[in-house]
């Protein structure tokens, strides 16, 4: 697994020099944080406490959507990039194993996506405090915190699993990207629940979604690893 670390560092070094990836990873979270804080500030001006809570809950929702979108920006480049630079064949000629390569590619996008998500959550709370004056702590329930901290790694993992599964089968990684956008769907389940209950109060629901995501990710990753074969990706990733 020493090679896994080497591959991860390479992926990140490359991403840091890639404007497209950097924009993809930073712009969207900043946009969401900006919009949320702006809406909260507007809501505070109206002086309707119940309305403010609804707005705050909507904002929290973004931090369940972000972890499914951010990894796509990184994952797709790390596949398209190897293809465009024709670096895949020299890479496959090394003693790296299929599993190491798979995990390297997957974690290279999951880890930063989760960190960026948490970071933007922190930024959101700080900005809310500065701009609006106070964070409505009564709305920041345990189920919300459990979702943002517990579910987002699972959401990112699932999203990347789908991308990897599709791209080791598809001949065009960009088409894989479009398809993988469907991976955002599980992130929306709490949204539906929220909209019917006004706020997220049920920890059992979060645990249930966590369980579903663990099973779904395990299935997707298992399938993705099974189809992730040296020869297949050498002859298809083009």
């Amino acid at each position: 697994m020493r090679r896994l670390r080497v591959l991860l560092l390479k992926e990140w070094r490359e991403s840091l020099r890639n404007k497209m990836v950097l924009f993809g990873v930073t712009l969207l979270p900043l946009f969401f944080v900006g919009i949320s804080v702006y809406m909260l500030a507007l809501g505070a001006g109206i002086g309707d406490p119940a309305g403010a809570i609804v707005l705050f809950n909507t904002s929290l929702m973004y931090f369940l959507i972000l972890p499914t979108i951010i990894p796509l920006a990184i994952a797709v480049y790390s596949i398209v990039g190897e293809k465009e630079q024709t670096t895949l064949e020299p890479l496959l000629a090394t003693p790296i194993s299929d599993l190491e390569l798979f995990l390297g590619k997957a974690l290279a996008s999951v880890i930063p996506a989760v960190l960026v998500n948490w970071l933007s959550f922190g930024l959101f709370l700080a900005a809310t405090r500065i701009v609006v004056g106070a964070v409505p702590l009564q709305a920041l329930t345990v189920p919300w915190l459990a979702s943002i901290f517990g579910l987002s790694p699972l959401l990112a993992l699932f999203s990347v699993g789908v991308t990897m599964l599709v791209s080791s089968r598809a001949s065009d990684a960009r088409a894989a990207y479009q398809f993988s956008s469907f991976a955002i769907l599980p992130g929306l389940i709490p949204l539906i629940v929220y909209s019917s209950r006004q706020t997220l109060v049920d920890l059992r629901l979060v645990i249930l979604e966590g369980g579903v995501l663990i099973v779904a990710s395990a299935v997707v990753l298992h399938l993705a690893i099974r189809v992730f074969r040296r020869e297949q990706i050498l002859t298809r990733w083009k």
Partner: protein
Amino acid sequence: MIRTEGLTRRFGSRVAVDGLDLHVPRGEVFGFLGPNGAGKTTTIRMLAALIAPSAGSATVAGQRLGKANREIRRRVGVLTETPGLYRRLSARDNLLFFARLYPVREPERQVERYLRLFELWDRKDEPAGSFSKGMRQKLAIARALLHEPEILFLDEPTAGLDPEAAKTVRELIATLRSKERTIFLCTHNLDEADRLCDRIGLFRTRMLAVGEPAALKEEMYGRRTVVHLASPSPGIELALHLPFVTKVERLEDRLVVTLPDPDAQNPALVRRLVELGAEVRFVNELRVSLEDLYLDLMEGRDAKA
């Protein structure tokens, strides 16, 4: 070092490599010659354990293909058809990444050694994307060598380079020759094969001929002596009647004589011509270029006939 038996690869119904039997001993520079689409890259990919053969077997660097693929990858180095470098990473980071994927004991030192050896050290911190084609190719060759492979596969190392860069790369390959290292060089550049290789194989889906360049030419064409005569009498070629001569052709005032051992038989040939009243102006050996051989073989012509 490399031994294959009936190595075959099909893509759907198309046969890319058909029943390849090959033996390349340690330390040899073997030239694998063939036109585009001959199956050279497919052969390298099979031997480097990148794609599986459809049939047949091979031993590479002492390891069974299909049984010890990871060990094979550890022991061979591949220069792929396109250099395949990470454009945004520096030359040094490109090499360090690969050095760390192999069991290289001191990656930094090894990378420095090759960057200096290939005269790229001054540009080590520049992104590989800013390099000229020739420099990229050198960097890619360095990458293939970092782990000191027992076998180095080079897939058309000078294709697409300008003549100057091609010369640099060719000179570099010449320096890589060593008793410990086997080099398998794919090319369609005949001059390159003739100059760099101990033996060559002419290949188009199947192996058409294998041997040392000089021996191959001889085998195909025999050795031929050209005798230039001053105004020869007509029909002199028919009057020769020498038992050792296998074939005589008349080309204006020259006779092209095929004979097995020119060093021993040329004096008798000249004596006989003088007897027949010919004035011999000079005698030389007909040199066949590898190109003639290649073209004849590829077009399925039998030059001896």
